[in-house]
C-alpha cells in the first residue's frame, strides 16, 4: 500500500513495497507517458521529477517514496501551458520514434531548473538518457533553445 503525490494529486495504491515507481505510475495511477526501457535505471525512458529532480523510476521501489515527495510525470509537466522544453522540442522537431523523448524532456527540464544557462558540455554530461533513433543533436539544440527562452522570459 502506498500513498503518492502525483502531479499534485494524492493517490493511494494497493501495491507491493518492491513495485518500482514506474509500474505504479503506469499501471496503478494509469499514466502511461512514463516509459519502460530497461528496468535497471540505465536508459532514462522512465524519468520523472521527484521533488524537482530528474529521477529514474524503473528501479526505485515505491516504498522509497512518500506522499511528502512531489512526483511530476510528463502528464503533469506542461499541464497548464507547455513547458519551454516541450515548446522547443516541437519547434525543432526533435523526436523521431518519440519513445525516449518523455524521459529526455523530464531530464532536460530538471537540468534547466537547476542550471538555467547550461553549456554544451553541461548538457552533454547531464543528459545521459539513451535514444536509439539518434536524436542527440536536436536534444542538445532543444535544451539550448529552451534555456534561451526561459532566460529571456525570466
Amino acid at each position, binding site marked *: 500500500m502506498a500513498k503518492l503525490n502525483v502531479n499534485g494529486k494524492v493517490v493511494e495504491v494497493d501495491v507491493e513495497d518492491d513495485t518500482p515507481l514506474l509500474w505504479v505510475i503506469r499501471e496503478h495511477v494509469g499514466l502511461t507517458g512514463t516509459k519502460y526501457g530497461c528496468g535497471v535505471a540505465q536508459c532514462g525512458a522512465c524519468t520523472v521529477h521527484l521533488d524537482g529532480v530528474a529521477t529514474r523510476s524503473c528501479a526505485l521501489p515505491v516504498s522509497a517514496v512518500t506522499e511528502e515527495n512531489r512526483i511530476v*510525470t510528463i502528464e503533469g509537466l506542461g499541464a497548464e501551458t507547455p513547458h519551454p522544453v516541450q515548446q522547443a522540442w516541437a519547434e525543432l522537431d526533435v523526436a523521431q520514434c518519440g519513445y525516449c523523448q518523455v524521459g529526455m524532456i523530464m531530464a532536460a527540464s530538471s537540468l534547466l531548473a537547476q542550471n538555467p544557462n547550461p553549456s554544451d558540455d553541461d548538457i552533454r554530461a547531464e543528459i545521459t538518457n539513451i535514444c536509439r533513433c539518434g536524436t542527440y543533436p536536436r536534444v542538445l539544440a532543444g535544451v539550448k533553445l529552451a534555456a534561451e527562452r526561459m532566460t529571456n522570459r525570466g
Partner: protein
Amino acid sequence: MTIHERIHSQSAAGRLSRRGFLTGAGAAAGAFSFGFSFPLPVRAVAQEAAKETVKEVNAWVVIQPDESVIIRIARAEMGQGSLTGLAQLVAEELDCDWDKVRFELVKPGENRRRERVWRDQSTGGSRAIRGSQEYVRMGGATARAMLVQAAAQQWGVPAARCSVAKGVITHQASGRSTTYGAVAAAANGIAPPTGLTLKDPKDWTIAGQPVKRLDTLDKLNGSLVYGMDISMPGMLVAIPKACPVHGGKLKSFDASAVSNMRGVKHVLRVDDETVAVVADTFWRAKTALDALPIEWDNGPNANVSSETIAAMLREGLTADTQFVGNRVGDAKAVLAGAGRVIEADYGFPYQNHAPMEVINATVRWTPERCEMWGPTQVAEAALDALAAAAELPAEACEVHVVRIGGSFGRRLTTEYVTMATRIARQVPGTPVKMMWTREEDMAQGRYHPVTQCRLRGAVDADGNLEALHMRISGQSIMAYMRPSIMTANGDPVTFQGLMPGGAEMAIGYTIPDLLIDHAMRNPHIRPGAWRGVNLNQNAVYLECFIDELAQAAKVDPLAFRRKLMANHPKHLAVLEAAAKGIGWETTKPPEGVHRGLAQVMGFGSYVAAAAEVSVKDGRLKIHRIVAATDPGYVVNPQQVEAQIAGSFVYGLSAMLYGECTVKDGRIVEENFDTYNVMRLDEMPVVEVITVPSGGFWGGVGEPTIAVAAPAVLNAVFAATGKRVRQLPLKNIDLNLS
C-alpha cells in the same frame, strides 16, 4: 532522509486503503483526461482520424466538412519519419492546404478486404517512400482530379477550366470557387480518371520542403499510446520466457510454486520453448516469472560460445565451397603471381537491435474473432501470423497498427505475434498484453549476423590496385528469415554494397581482377535484418581495407579511391562532397585531430562520410562528421538530415560498443549496462550534405549507417597507426604503443 537514501530503504510504505485507481480502461482514460492541454501554435495533438463517417475521396484521401484532410498511411512509422514524407507526396499532388493535413494508419485486414488497395504494407529496406512514391502520388493526383470534377459538374463547366490552390477550387472564367470540403462527398461518386501525369519534382511546393512531422505533439506530452501503453477493460499482462539457448526446449515448470502469488492468473506453456506468466500487472507477472522453477532442455547448442563460432567462421575463410557474388577476371591467379600481396582478416559481431520499446503485442482471442493491437513493420504478415496462430480465417482477424517506439528491423519478423496469440488463446475473451522484459528482448533477438572477412589485395609498383579477393565467411540472414529467396548457391543478400551493378547495392570501384565470395556458416543464434543489414559489415571490410591498400601503395586514401572510381560517378560525387566538406585537400585538421573517409552504395542511395577524431591516452573522441548523400530525390530535407545524423548514432554505437557474445549457447549481454550504446556526450557534430541528382529514388534510413564505422576507423588509424579489424572498439587498446 533524502530521496536517495530512501531509494535504498523499503520502510517508507504507507498503510492506506486502496481507492479508485484502477488498471484497465479507466487507467487509459485517466491518461487522457488528466487535464492536459497543449495549446501549441502548431496543429492538433490528436492525429487519429475523427470517427464521424465521412466518405473518402479515394483510398488515400478523406476530406472532412471542416476542410481537414486525412491522408492514409500504409507503411509503418517507427521514428524514421516516412509517415510525414508519404503524406507530403499525397498532399503535393492533391494541392491541399498542408496545415490541414492529418493522418490515419491503414489496418492490414482493411487492406485485404479492399483487395490491397494500399498495396504492400511492409516497411523495411529503406523502402517506405521509394517503394510506394509513384502510386501514393498518383493517389493524391487522382483524388484531386475527382474533387475538381465534382466542382466542375456542379457548376456545369469543364474541369480543365478549373484550378486549385490549397484546397480551394476556382473557375476563373465565372469567378466561382468552392472548397475541397464542400465537394468531397460528391467527389466520392466520380469515376477515378486514369492517365494522369505526376508533377515534376522541381515544381514541388509541399514535397521537398522541410515541413515539420505530422506526428510529433503527442510524443511530447505522453499521450501517444504505443503498443506498450495499450490498456483495455479486464486486460491481463503476460510475460514470456523462452529457452535462453536458441533451439532448446522447455522441459518443465512448476506452476504451483507461483500460482498463489498475488495477481497471478495463469502460468502457461506457450510453445515448445516458452513459458509465460499471466497476471494483472507487469510487476506481479515479472515477480512470479523470476520465482518460477523452470527446467530447460538446452539441446545440442548448449556448448556453443563466441570462440567456437569464431573458429567455425575462420574455417570458412579458406574453405573451397563458396558462393560468388562478384567476379571480374581471375583475382586468385593474379594474387598468386603478384609481387606484393596485402592481407587482412576482419570480423563483425552479433548486434541486438535494442529499440527503446521492447517486443510487445496485445491480443484478444475468441472462437469467432482474434485481434491484435501493437507494433509491427509487416502489418500483413502480422495478420497472417495472427490468423494462423488463432486458427481462424484472416477475415475474422485484424491487426490494429500503432506507431512504434523504434524498431530498426526487429519487427520484420512475426514470431512474437504468434507467441502473443498462443497466450491469448489460452485465456479466451480476455485481452492479454504480452510484454517482454528488456532481458528477454536481449536474449531472444533476431541479431545482426556474425561474419568474418579475409581480404587479399595486390598492389603494383606504381601504386595501382591490380586484384582483390574478398572472402566473407559467416551467417546468412535469409537462410533463417526468408529461405524462399535463397538461390541454389547461397544468399544473394550477403553481397549488399558489393554487387557488380544494378540500382540497389553496387560496388563503387573498378578493379581489374576481382573476386568476392561467401562461405555460408550458420551458427544457431537467430539472425535478423538489423538496420543497414549486410551493408554494415561489408562497408567496414571493404572501406577499411581500401585504406590499407592505399597505405601500402603510399597513396592518399582519397586519391587512391578516385583512381578506382572513374566508372562510378555517383559514388564518387558523394565521396568528393564529403571530402570537400571536411576540407580533406584544403584545410589542415586541428592539432591532434585526424581524418578518415568511407563511401558505399546501399538501398538505392549513394553515401559517404568523412570523420575527424583524436585519440588521447587511449581514449577516442569523435569530433566531427561530414556526411554526403545522393538519394535521387529528397522529400523532406530536415527529416533526411535527422535520419542521417541518427544513422551515426546507430552505426557508431555498434562500432564502439555493440557486441552480443555467446556463452553456453546463450547470449550473455542482458541489458544496457553490458550492451552499451552511444549517448549524448559522445555525439560528434554531424554536417549533412544532400546532393540529390534525380532520376532515381533511393532510401535514406539505412545506407549512412554503413559509412559511420569505416570513416571513423580509418581516422583512428590516421591517429594511432592501429588498424581496428575486429569490432567493437571497446575491446581494443588504442594507447599508442
